[in-house]
């Protein structure tokens, strides 16, 4: 069996490995968006932030030779994008959804424009941690080469889940998100909280972009994201604004996305377009199964413009 096929075991292995490899951008974007939406604002522009982050990280890594600096630079640009969004949205009668779409197009356009000269060069990649040393199977070893950002994402999900409930900052965020008036009555400045929440959200989304360009698939080109930032925003609603839910939903999406190629590789080759639709079919099924005609979305922040 050595270094040849592993047969049908390839499918569960690919789903497992895919869940880890593909999910990281979803984790970071959806966690960032959870913070933003918990403060009562929607930032639909994270696709633009993600792609701009991917470009920045790649460009900085090429120029400095350090992928870590690339990630930090991406975080900084993400925070700037988030701040712009938050600043515009604080003005009365500004629609955050419309601004989000505008910011998405702006981010994409700017990233394509500035990123032109970085398509060709090869950037150093982010390191991964080989956890598969115990296994003699090369496939398992490859699947367990896990990037450090995945663990950071997992830890962040747990931390946010705890922090939303148990810290002063978490409480402030939730108050602002549930009722602007109550927050004002408590002496909190809702605009400032939302500005910061959007900036942090943008910064996290940009880390997702850095993972795409610096680790997996590990290359910068204009089609690098193909809509993952938008999917991640939808994941937040799917996960009911719960950080741990976001993490699990991202894993589910990553795993389901790996299903199509894995099935073809073991010889299930008919109808691969159908398997490629698996993540979306799964989402529909879960949303229908968990929906209720009698209550509104559980966990939705009250001041979110979606729920108005």
């Amino acid at each position: 069996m050595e270094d040849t096929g592993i047969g049908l075991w390839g499918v569960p292995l690919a789903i497992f490995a895919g869940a880890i490899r593909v999910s990281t951008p979803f984790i970071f974007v959806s966690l960032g968006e959870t913070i933003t939406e918990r403060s009562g604002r929607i930032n639909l522009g994270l696709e633009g932030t993600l792609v701009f982050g991917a470009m920045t990280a790649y460009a900085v890594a090429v120029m400095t030779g350090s992928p870590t600096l690339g990630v930090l630079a991406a975080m900084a640009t993400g925070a700037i994008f988030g701040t712009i969004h938050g600043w515009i949205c604080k003005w009365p009668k500004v629609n955050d959804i419309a601004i989000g779409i505008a910011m998405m197009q702006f981010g994409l356009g700017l990233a394509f424009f500035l990123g032109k000269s970085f398509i060709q060069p090869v950037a150093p990649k982010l390191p991964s941690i080989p956890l598969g040393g115990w296994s003699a199977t090369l496939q398992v070893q490859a699947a367990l080469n896990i990037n450090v950002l995945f663990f950071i994402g997992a830890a962040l999900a747990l931390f946010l889940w705890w922090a939303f409930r148990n810290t002063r900052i978490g409480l402030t965020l939730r108050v602002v998100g549930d009722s602007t008036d109550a927050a004002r009555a408590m002496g909190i400045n809702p605009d400032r909280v939302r500005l910061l929440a959007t900036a942090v959200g943008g910064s996290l989304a940009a880390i997702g972009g850095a993972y795409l360009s610096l680790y997996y698939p590990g290359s910068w080109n204009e089609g690098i994201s193909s809509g993952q930032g938008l999917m991640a925003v939808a994941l937040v609603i799917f996960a009911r604004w719960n950080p741990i839910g976001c993490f699990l939903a991202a894993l589910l999406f990553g795993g389901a996305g790996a299903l199509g190629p894995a099935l073809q590789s073991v010889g299930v080759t008919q109808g691969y377009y159908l398997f490629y639709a698996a993540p979306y079919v799964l989402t529909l099924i879960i949303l229908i199964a968990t929906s209720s005609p009698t209550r509104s979305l559980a966990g939705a922040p009250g001041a979110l413009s979606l729920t108005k």
Partner: protein
Amino acid sequence: MTKLLPMNRRNFLQASAAGLAAGAVPGLIGSPAAAQTALTIGFIYVGPKDDYGYNQAHAEGAAVIKKMPGITLVEEENVPETVDVQKTMESMINLDGATLLFPTSFGYFDPHMLAMAAKYPKVQFRHCGGLWTEGKHPANTGSYFGYIGQGQYLNGIAAGYASKSKKIGFVAAKPIPQVVQNINSFLLGARSVDPTITCQVIFTGEWSLAVKEAEATNALIDQGADVITCHVDSPKVVVETAAGRGAFVCGYHANQSALAKDKYLTGAEWAWGNVYTNFIKAAQSGGKLGNFVRGGLKDGFVKMSPLGPAVSAEGRKKFEATLAEIMSGKFSVFKGPIKDNKGNVVVTAGKSFAEDAIELESMGYLVEGVVGSTS
């Protein structure tokens, strides 16, 4: 064609630009103007023109003719295969005065280029990859393509010698005839070395989907494939992922040896510069542009990357011998008997197709030994 409508913006631009263009470009076809006639040429790409792949190969070709005297080049990249490409063509014709257009992506042909060709009968359109048919398609259109399948056959030979697991892998975009022919050629090349080799194919469904291509490459290697090639627009992700997992790589579209280092065996590359130069020379001298232009390795349409260090001496010998046979024009990749992977005979014994056989351009079957399905 002329509608009795109030003049709108587009009609106005069209009318005024047509006047300008007529002044600037003294007739492309049949005009006995001296060589080096001023010409404006439009190139349209479906992706970025530095993608280490399909679009880069065309853009490198365009860069060759840009240096020719009297040539003005207008280029637009990232143009989707939708009505958008019609708008791009109209603006190149009306605003830039282009009289020869090269829409380089497969999906531009029908209906987009054909619609524009009917609307602008004086403009010449040459499409890469389309199957132009006399009588069916307008005379001011045409298609050109290279027989890169032979290049994939040579890739297959290199792969056949390099593979230890006797399983090779192919990451493919869409099951169109050119892709299918490349898959088949790759396997047939490998089987000319060892008839027990199989080739696993994974279709991603799109020309450029970075994450899915990386997943497909990983899935192939998980199943034991140890030489990978591909037919997607930008092979960069596949090449880097495969080399990173320790598999050998055969390149496609352009030379990717810089990305895979010593894991790079060889690659089938386009040499569009020659093709475009011929078109421009014909246009400038007032000659007729071919409507159906095809060529392979021996015509300089296609070239092979230099062999990498991992190719054995034996492999090198067979590779070079086959290449020489191809250059002499006597070689045929599809020689009967060939069965498809469902067991039907698709090429009967004794029959063989030359590289320019029209039957090969509508290939819809995967040959025996390819594990995969086109639907």
